[in-house]
């Protein structure tokens, strides 16, 4: 079963078409990276899939539930980590986890289990009592992503999760994302080609709201005759390449 099925999805703002006729299927357990230059339509696509923005036309289903007809049902299955760090600033790491757990109706026992899981998966236990605003950028981003897992989503959207992080913090986050692979479907947008290369099962390239390419890293290199994902991306975007 496809975790995500997108059919002719379109989003228009006044005089701009942000996403145009998007067709895509993403399998359960897959990590799919969406690449594109600024304004390509990546974040708008994520927002439509996460029910934050209504599509102008077309349809998208998350695990068989429609984002337009059953947004509440979709919300039960997904979570999102936005480009900006989204944590409660004056709450400690522990209180942030407790807050999100309580918000999604977890019992005290479940909250304790959630905290244990997040401390182990993200190494956040060592800063559990620190206020979020006093953490470094890398730790704040880790917490922000960790909070998206509190709801135990079937589908996780990561919108430029490592934006602005130093190389060490970025590598640490990659390792964390790797541990999540297969346990859920992950859709990741990024400007870092090496990030897509290191983490993705498949890669999609968007430009001007259109999906120009979908395939594995090997297919991307083979199609463009290049040696790395960055050159392949440039070749597809500048050449306005065709999807297979």
């Amino acid at each position, binding site marked *: 079963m496809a975790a995500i099925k997108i059919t002719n999805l379109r989003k228009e703002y006044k005089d701009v078409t942000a996403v145009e006729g998007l067709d895509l299927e993403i399998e359960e357990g897959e990590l799919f990276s969406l690449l594109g230059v600024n304004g390509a339509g990546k974040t708008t696509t994520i*927002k439509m899939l*996460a*029910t*934050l*923005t*209504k599509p102008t036309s077309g349809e998208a289903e998350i695990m068989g539930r429609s984002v337009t007809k059953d947004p*509440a049902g979709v*919300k*039960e299955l*997904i*979570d*999102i*980590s*936005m*480009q*900006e*760090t*989204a*944590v*409660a*600033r*004056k*709450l400690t790491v522990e*209180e942030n986890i407790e*807050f999100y757990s*309580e*918000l*999604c*109706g977890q019992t005290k026992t479940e909250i304790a289990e959630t905290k244990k899981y997040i401390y182990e998966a993200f190494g956040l236990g060592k800063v559990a009592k620190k*206020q979020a605003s006093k953490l470094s950028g890398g730790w704040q981003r880790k917490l922000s992503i960790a*909070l*998206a897992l509190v*709801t135990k989503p079937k589908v996780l959207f990561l919108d430029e999760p490592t934006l602005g992080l130093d190389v060490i913090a970025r590598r640490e986050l990659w390792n964390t994302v790797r541990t999540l692979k297969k346990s859920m479907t992950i859709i990741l947008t990024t400007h870092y080609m090496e990030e897509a290369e290191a983490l993705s099962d498949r890669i999609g390239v968007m430009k001007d709201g259109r999906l120009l390419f979908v395939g594995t890293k090997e297919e991307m290199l083979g199609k463009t005759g290049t040696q790395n994902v960055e050159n392949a991306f440039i070749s597809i975007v500048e050449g306005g390449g065709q999807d297979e």
Partner: protein
Amino acid sequence: MSRSISRLAALTKRNIREIVRDPLSLIFTLALPLFMEVLFYFIFHNLTDQFQMRYLAPGIVAFSQAFLTLFTGLLIALDRSTSFLTRLFVSETKPFEFIFSYAVSVLPITLVQTVLFFLAGGLIDPSLFGPGMLLAIPVSLVTSMFFIGTGILFGCICNEKSIGGISSIIITGQSVLSGMWFPTAGLGNGILTVMKVLPFKNATILIQNTVNGITDPWEDFVLPLIIVLGYTVVVFTVAVIAFRGKMRKV
């Protein structure tokens, strides 16, 4: 229903923690008005009735509520700018739950403000203590809803940089148009009419009259209450509309 209540409880607890852990909010909502209450009493109470504690303390209660607009607005504006709210929009939380939790979470601060300023006033002038003062506590919670609602509205439509500027309109309005800092007897009819139709003076006299006793129920209590509640309903309605709009445009 029980899920909605647990979400409200979680949001409210979080909002209270955010507010009370901001030292600036405690300085402006508690320390500064308390300092002004004591200072103005000792400087001016022999000069004019305006600064007798029976008028000054309830006036300070109303004045301090204007700062709630600033800190409620700032909390929401920061939540919006950091994508914190966007993340919560993906949860099952409803718009009215957000608005309700923001409003409820500021009420304990209102309660602390009122009790603190009445206690301080009563210690200076014990004649302030009495049933009127006790009745004025729930009345002050009602008047605070106008300022809190305005803060929610400003937080929905302004960013964290502009919230200080726009909230200063309310703080200035409460200072100048409440009539608590100067005698209004000599003012022209035009400005007096403005003061009568705006919520600032009405919020102030509601608390002052409750403390000091009501002689004409309509003029002293019911009419000011209707005016304050009217503004409160309007700002909350517009705030809900603005909040829904923001939810659709993330």
